[in-house]
């Protein structure tokens, strides 16, 4: 197998905290970030969410933005998380000039649109947010705030967006198209998504119970997470946090919002990721599952896992009960969690699990577990049948 692509920086903001350190502390303490909406103004105050408890004003303060900025909430998250990643990777001003930025987001600046939609026609005050609705605008603003001057693009494949962004970054470095790239994604809570998922009746009124027989839906979350990827020939002895050794993308080609019973898309994505990494299923020490806690996802994903791993299913857990399902950002958040797991040889627990589902009998890791980890599989599946799997591996000295 080849070495994979080096990760030299990571940054994250989620309901668990505003840095990788804060997120890690919560993960090992088994402390959920789920709560009820306070920042998001919604009538659905009964629905648990993984909300970042800072207002946009407070977040803008962290970035020292001018008063009339055009940063929507996802942009604020994105800039904060990407900044942390860049600072860990010690990228210089010169480095940034040839650093690309690939971001995944689903609703972009929708929170601004839903706030000002009814007043745009009458009042001039917030019209600067009209263009900010579109995901590419979000991405361009983060890139320009952080002086990232190479290729900038946005992927929007629903809940697999940032996993695809990470995959594209790794591919571009492998192909020699870029030397450095910041990859990941961002999404904020919005009335649009909360009501959308609620109308689909897949939100739980309790804290989500991924892979549990009595699971009854997901909790939404918000946040952003980014990695810095660098080509080996520009590393100059820099510390490497881990490597992206495999990636696979496939489409379930089954239904716009539901996953197939056979988990075909997920199966193909995992299979391709193993092939790219040159690994067999036996080499995977831990799966950070998509595990949204909907009836449909967890069964379909379990079926795909059984098809790949057979009798020998490795340790697995979903971290959605910590952060909520952060949609397009989830692949980024879980990439950071996977790297933290690799660095610390720890598996973070699948909270709220009690009883295995009848169909598969699979039991996730439900308490923090110490274990030597070499290769971690991370799954992200979304609406539109978009399935992506990534493999993170320890850096071989």
């Amino acid at each position, binding site marked *: 197998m080849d070495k994979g692509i080096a990760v030299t920086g990571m940054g994250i903001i989620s309901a668990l905290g505003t840095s990788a350190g804060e997120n890690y502390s919560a993960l090992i303490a088994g402390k959920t970030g789920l709560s009820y909406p306070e920042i998001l103004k919604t009538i659905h105050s009964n629905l648990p969410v993984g909300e970042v408890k800072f207002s946009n004003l407070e977040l803008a303060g962290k970035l020292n933005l001018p008063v009339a900025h055009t940063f929507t909430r996802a942009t604020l998250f994105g800039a904060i998380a990407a900044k942390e990643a860049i600072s860990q990777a010690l990228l210089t001003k010169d480095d940034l000039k040839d650093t690309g930025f690939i971001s995944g987001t689903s609703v972009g600046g929708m929170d601004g649109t839903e706030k000002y939609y009814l007043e745009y026609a009458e009042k001039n005050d917030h019209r600067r947010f*009209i263009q900010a609705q579109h995901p590419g605008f979000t991405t361009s603003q983060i890139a320009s705030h952080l002086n990232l001057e190479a290729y900038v693009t946005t992927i*929007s494949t629903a809940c697999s967006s940032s996993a695809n962004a990470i995959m*594209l970054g790794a591919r571009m470095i492998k192909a020699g198209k870029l030397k450095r790239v910041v990859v990941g994604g961002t999404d904020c809570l919005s009335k649009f998504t909360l009501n959308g998922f609620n109308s689909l009746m897949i939100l739980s009124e309790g804290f989500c119970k991924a892979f549990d027989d009595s699971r009854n839906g997901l909790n939404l979350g918000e946040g952003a997470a980014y990695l810095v990827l660098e080509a080996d020939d520009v590393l100059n002895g820099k510390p490497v946090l881990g490597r992206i050794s495999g990636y696979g993308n496939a489409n379930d080609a089954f239904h716009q919002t539901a996953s197939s019973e056979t988990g075909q898309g997920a199966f193909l994505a995992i299979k391709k990721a193993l092939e790219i990494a040159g690994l067999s299923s036996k080499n995977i020490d831990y799966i950070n599952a998509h595990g949204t806690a909907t009836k449909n996802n967890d069964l379909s994903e379990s079926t795909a896992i059984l098809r790949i791993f057979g009798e020998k299913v490795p340790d697995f857990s979903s971290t959605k009960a910590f952060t909520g399902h952060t949609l397009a950002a989830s692949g980024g958040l879980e990439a950071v969690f996977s790297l933290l797991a690799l660095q610390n040889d720890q598996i973070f627990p699948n909270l709220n699990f009690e009883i295995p589902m009848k169909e598969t009998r699979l039991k996730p890791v439900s308490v923090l577990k110490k274990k030597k980890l070499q290769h971690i599989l991370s799954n992200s599946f979304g*609406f*539109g049948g978009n399935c992506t799997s990534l493999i993170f591996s320890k850096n071989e000295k």
Partner: protein
Amino acid sequence: MKNNRLYINGISSISAQQENAVFDGNINTYHQNIIPAVSPDYKQFIQPMALRRMSKAIRMGLTSAKIALKQAGITKPDAIITGTGEGCKQDTEKFLEAILNQNEKLLTPTAFIQSTHNTIGGQLAQYLECTGYNVTYTQNSASFESVLMDAQLLFLEDQEMNSILVGGVDELSKKMTSFMYLDHQLKEQEISNSNLLKTNSSGTITSEGAHFFSISAEKSEKTYAELIDVSVFQAKTSEDVSEKILKMLQLSNYTIEDIDLVILGNNGDNRFDHFYHHLQNGLFSEKPQLAYKHLTGDYKTVSGYAVWLACKIFKTGSIPEIFKLNGVTCQNPKTILLYNQYLGDNHSIMILNSN
């Protein structure tokens, strides 16, 4: 690094103009700044039951994709890559208005389900039963170019990869498109599209459309063009753009002499058309120059029309007068360069060769 070859073997355009009519001199003129696309007979391509639920973006996207694939003789591509600058705005708007008007109560999910940016890519996968690589890009006016960059990479990585469906699609919606007047993306006064490039005011006109292409690593008798290279970049000044073009030509082992014709994204916005004027009066002053947005309006994936136009010019050898920005002529152009930007951002260059 030498790219693998990337050939365009099937093309399709849905825009404010009838697909092939412009080559017969039949031009649609409009006196409005928001122009709907001319709808083909969707029923020929999509089941009536399914059609009823679909927004225009989905209709246009599926239809355009099917036409391009049919032309290339492909039933199931190995991968599907879609670009959309503003996504499924009609369903987004519908669901958002329901939330606001009904105060978050009694909502039905259909519009939400169809509102995600990857709806068209996902629908295409289902219709074509294609479980292969599937991604949707949404990077403003560089969304379609991002698609092509990914396709280039896929061919480079995977020798087995033979055919990829690529395309760009954007639709109008009532409110969200009209907001473009409020932040000066559109001209204040309604104009005739045929006068777009003669105006001296800020803003442009907008429209919608879908442009899909069936591309392959192998050349065939159906081939329209080879994509030599594509680039998306940021530029502060017109000089930056010229510099970028020269650099890109060099990387592809081309010189400025090899370029027979240029297709530019002029949209009549006097705040930003200097990016094109600089090239028209500088680097490309001796070249035949074409523009197209006075026929199609400007929207985030309209550069798909420019690629379609280049392909048609290669195949027919004719260049309709209506596109010409200058009097320089050429017979059977072999190499065409396309340049586009929107509001000074998301610049892109593509180089196509008729081979």
